[in-house]
């Protein structure tokens, strides 16, 4: 198995494919932005594509994939845990749906 250092030298084909994939996904996001779909679906698709782009950049451009697994797991767990706990704000953001309090909106 190649070491992390060995991955930073040698052929670039794999990285060029990742580069193209990130650009294609960026184009796909623009196509989705002009579709007439439900806003929640739109947000979900945009987030999913952005997460794939970010994953490709982290794993290949930043070489996290070739570092020790324990580093990847430590960083991923810490980041995802904190970001997940921040999601508690969303329910409060829907207090004024359509310009009226949520209770009167339905």
């Amino acid at each position, binding site marked *: 198995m190649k070491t*992390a*250092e060995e991955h*930073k*030298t040698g052929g*670039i084909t794999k*990285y*060029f494919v990742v*580069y193209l994939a*990130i*650009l294609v996904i*960026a*184009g796909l*996001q*623009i196509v*989705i*932005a*002009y579709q007439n779909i439900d*806003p929640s679906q*739109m*947000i979900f698709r*945009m*987030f999913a*594509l*952005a997460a794939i*782009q*970010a994953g490709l*950049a*982290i794993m290949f*451009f*930043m070489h996290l994939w070739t*570092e*020790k697994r*324990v*580093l990847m797991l*430590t*960083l991923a767990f*810490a*980041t995802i845990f*904190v*970001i997940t706990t*921040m*999601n508690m*704000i*969303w329910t*409060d*953001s*829907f*207090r*004024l749906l*359509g*310009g009226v309090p949520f209770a009167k909106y339905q």
Partner: protein
Amino acid sequence: MSHANVSIATPQPVGVMESSPFSIPSKKLVMWLFIVSDAVTFTAVLFAYGYLRNATPNWPHPFRFSPSIINVMVMTFILVTSSFTMLLGVRAAKEGNKSKAILWTFVTVAAGLVFALLHIREWMGLIGEGVRLFQNPWGSGLFGASFFSVTGLHLLHVIGGVAVLTVVALGYKRGRYNSDDLEIWGLYWHFVDLVWMFVVPFVYLLNITRAS
């Protein structure tokens, strides 16, 4: 507790150090920890933006295909390409090809500068249309504050990255820095690119002008 009970640790022989955590240099680990904390900072700013957008009924949708979305497409292409050139620079440095490493790093710096100029042009266009921090011609005044906060923080990172990469590349040329330093600041530059991947869909593409 009396001082007599305190044992004095046996000093380590010179040169004997603790092994590198996670088998990477300590400064690389520090950069990864900075990236994690910065990722959380950007998430907080994007969440604040999302909160305001959800909670505000008359949120503006000012981004027309031309010029805004076309500009964003060009900016994305430049930033992702700069990430790729940074990768080529780091690889050249690891292979010991100093001149190639410096060349690709300066290509990255140039791309970062073009990105920053395009971003400022985008800002000037919006300011010209009447967007201010707390007011705009279309709807909620909070739009300007949140838009300029998110994109401004990112622009600050790009400008900071351009400055640092210039210093590190020149230092690498003079022998002050090595390939590890270039790789570590390359990580930062990839992170700046990564943040843009979330700014584009959530700040621009969810607020495009639609034909009514």
